[in-house]
């Protein structure tokens, strides 16, 4: 495969490209779906192919194929070159990349137990054990679902800068969903665990900390109330905090959104955009779900500080955004598969720990809302307006958690909310493994935070 990639890069330069990148992608995945104690479906898939990206006459062309033969990849190259030429006459973004030293390396992430060494029967047995804890928790548990997924991704990047990098990454994820019911009232609880890991992750799961937690949450939400609506001080747990960091600031710091005028923090490097308590880092080198060693342009990944003590210090970069914004690329470009060009993505994004306990954060809030567990969120980065859907919440009254609340979502404006972070805890946890969507691509990410407090957040509710 490496020979093929190298020859196509050479051909690309001969066909007139000033930059040529050829990327082989392969992903082998397996999943098992359990519903109410029945492992009703087992699935396995193999994705593989080649994506070719070129700069010709200052414009980008990209093409991909599932067929990794010389003829098919050569056709993809020619499509990419002719694609770039097809837009040369039209006004738009000039294509350019940062000139970096080539990387030549092979990285294979080790696991203790390869999922391939565990039989499907054994996996089913173990997953049913984990699911059983949720199913048998209460007669109000209506349905339980558990999805096991393993995947091994192999990416080989070869480009005309001389880079030739191969990385093989195993990932494991379990997702549990429980529906509880009482009369017409139905509520859900979720838990998710995932990492760059092998089957040992599944062996080490404690049902009490995973599926049982989801079941307890679903059942307890049956008696939770809608939240009050309005603007409040909120305290977020590490999962809601992770979602906030990802949506409110993470996307805004993606270099491609910055140079293209789609970010509310463009042009603000060196400015104070958050309270002194805020330091936000994106770190692909941490062993969490968004971990990798080389990005999909072959740049070695480093931790990136986005905000330090309230001051915006940098963005996340691809080779292109680094060139356009005058920065060093530090490895943030990834692609969902060979069918997509690399774009700037977060990895493991978190708010750095402060020094307070949760009790200290809560104690001077007379009336506010404590938010726990994240569902999903989104941001309109160009406006800096974000929304985060939360699993459950509690009223804070006189510094104490009181009434249990459900169906809570928060909305805020990035530049206001960052300045309104008024207390940060010491209990950093990164435990939000999931997939992030951007420009039609889905990517492995993780996020986290310690408990922290934000003032003046709009809480959606019915009361």
């Amino acid at each position, binding site marked *: 495969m490496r020979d093929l990639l190298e020859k196509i890069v050479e051909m690309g330069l001969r066909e007139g490209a000033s930059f040529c990148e050829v990327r082989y992608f392969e992903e082998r995945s397996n999943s098992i779906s359990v519903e109410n104690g029945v492992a009703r479906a*087992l699935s396995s898939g193999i994705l593989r192919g080649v994506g070719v990206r070129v700069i010709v006459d200052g414009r980008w062309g990209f093409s991909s194929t599932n067929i990794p033969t010389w003829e098919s990849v050569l056709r993809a190259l020619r499509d990419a070159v002719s*694609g770039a030429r097809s*837009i040369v006459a039209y006004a738009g973004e000039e294509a350019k990349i940062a000139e970096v030293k080539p990387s030549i390396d092979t990285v294979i992430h080790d696991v203790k137990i390869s999922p391939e060494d565990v039989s499907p029967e054994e996996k089913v047995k173990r997953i049913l054990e984990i699911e059983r804890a949720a199913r048998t928790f209460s007669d109000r548990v209506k349905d339980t679902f558990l999805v096991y997924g393993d995947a091994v991704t192999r990416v080989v990047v070869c480009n005309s800068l001389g880079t030739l990098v191969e990385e093989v990454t195993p990932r494991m994820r379990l997702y549990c969903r429980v529906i509880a019911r009482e009369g017409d009232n139905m509520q859900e609880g979720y838990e998710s665990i995932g990492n760059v890991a092998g089957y040992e992750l599944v062996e080490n799961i404690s049902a009490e900390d995973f599926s049982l937690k989801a079941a307890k949450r679903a059942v307890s939400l049956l008696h939770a109330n809608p939240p009050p609506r309005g603007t409040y001080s909120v305290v977020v747990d590490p999962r809601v905090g992770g979602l906030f960091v990802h949506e409110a600031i993470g996307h805004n710091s993606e270099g491609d959104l910055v140079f293209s005028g789609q970010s509310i923090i463009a042009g603000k490097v060196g400015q104070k955009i958050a309270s002194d308590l805020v330091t936000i880092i994106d770190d692909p080198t941490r062993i969490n779900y968004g971990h990798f060693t080389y990005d999909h342009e072959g740049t070695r990944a480093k931790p990136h500080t986005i905000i330090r003590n309230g001051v915006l210090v940098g963005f996340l970069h691809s080779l292109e955004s680094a060139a356009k914004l005058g920065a060093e690329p530090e490895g943030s470009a990834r692609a969902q598969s060979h069918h997509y060009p690399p774009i700037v993505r977060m990895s493991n994004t978190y708010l750095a720990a402060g020094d307070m306990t949760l009790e200290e954060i809560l104690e001077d809030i007379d009336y506010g809302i404590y938010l726990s567990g994240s569902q999903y969120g989104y941001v309109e980065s160009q406006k800096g307006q974000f929304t985060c859907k939360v699993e459950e919440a509690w009223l804070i009254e006189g510094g104490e958690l009181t009434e249990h609340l459900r169906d809570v979502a928060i909305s805020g404006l990035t530049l206001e909310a960052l300045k309104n972070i008024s207390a940060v805890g010491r209990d950093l946890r990164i435990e939000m493994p999931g997939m992030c969507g951007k420009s039609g691509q889905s990517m492995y990410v993780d996020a986290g935070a310690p408990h922290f407090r934000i003032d003046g957040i709009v809480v959606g509710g019915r009361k």
Partner: protein
Amino acid sequence: MGVEEIDLAAPVEKAARLLSQMDIDFYDVVASYSRSISINILGRGIKEASSRVDLGIGVRVFRNKGLGVAYSQSLEDRDIEATVKRAVGFARVAQPDPYFKGLPGPSKAPEVPGLCDSEVISLTLEEATRIPKEMISAAEEVRVGAMYFGGFSASYSRAYLTVSTGVSVEAEKTAVSAYLQPVYREGDDVGSSYEFDYGISLSNINPCWIGKRAAEKAIEQFGSRKVESGSLPLILMPEASGSLFSSLLSALSGEPAAKGRTFASGLLGKHIGPETIDVMDDGTIPGAIASSTYDGEGVPKRPLKVVERGRVLTFLHNSYSAGIMNVESTGHAIRGGYGGYVGAGPSNIRVKPGDSTLDEILAETRRGILVLNASFTPNMVSGEFSTTIDEGFLIEGGEKKHPVKNLMAGGHILNLFKNIELISKEGRLFGKGHFFPIVKIGEVKLSGK
């Protein structure tokens, strides 16, 4: 766009031959090929031209009511054999699903015309570039100086499905879509919005209209302000009302609906709102985006009245959910390519227009929110929602006062249907298939400053 003549029938039949010799109860095999081209817009204009060839085969095997699935992006003989082997091996390990009753048999349907546009198939990247260029030019005629996000894409896809019950179906389709989001800045103030269109044919896309509308809507968003918490009527434009009706039909679809797992599971035969609500699902409209002759399991598509005079008449079934309720499939199986999963969901959603105009609806609104863009998709289990009004205006005395920001609406989706006060006679036709009117909903709880 350079579509290749790749034989899909031969690999599918090869897999089917292998499967027919094995000790299994049911199987289906699908292979699909697609070719797409796109021109991406970012920043100052056109950024990138791209193209893609995708090819794959998926096998589903049922044995003793357990399901094994395998798929591969290679149609080579040895990969087909390996894919079949993996699916059969997994089906042997899977446990019996008591709700599985079998796969549907063959039935003939008249072909739905107009789903494959030869102009799209022959479109080159050079020709495709005209569309983003025209979108941007039209936006710049309204106002220069925007930074953009958007693009145009065109695709052709062909799929071949064989089921062990005798179903054998081949279908091809084209699709096009265009989108433009201009962002204007005046100091710290941002004017941003978007417009889009999609369909089967190039004639479904009017790039000049998209560019002009996107720019005009973006400029209108300057000076957005926060609004106090309270309860106000909402006027949902078609882009927002679409999420309301799509959510209802999704919650009435397939396994989750039949197994009592959605907010709409208990709605059969019940009234959800005023008698002015009529919703039809029709996957047989010629040339419409969500039309097809057969559904994802080879069952003929047919028009289906889902809500009549405010009353829910039916679920939207695939064979699995129909089996749970001992009824026939309504032809709403949706197969997500060759990846194996078969779900159920709506096709072209048609909401019957009412008799008001937007001007009349606005005129009779003393104070309310005109919602251009917001998702009213609720928690599909509980039906409760809490959503940000992504783009909207405060209405006072029947007129737009100012755009809003940082404003949320919350409640139960069924209360939104109950409180529908007016439905407009005008609306928007999306992809020549979906039709959503403007809908006015009485008091909705809002969270703001």
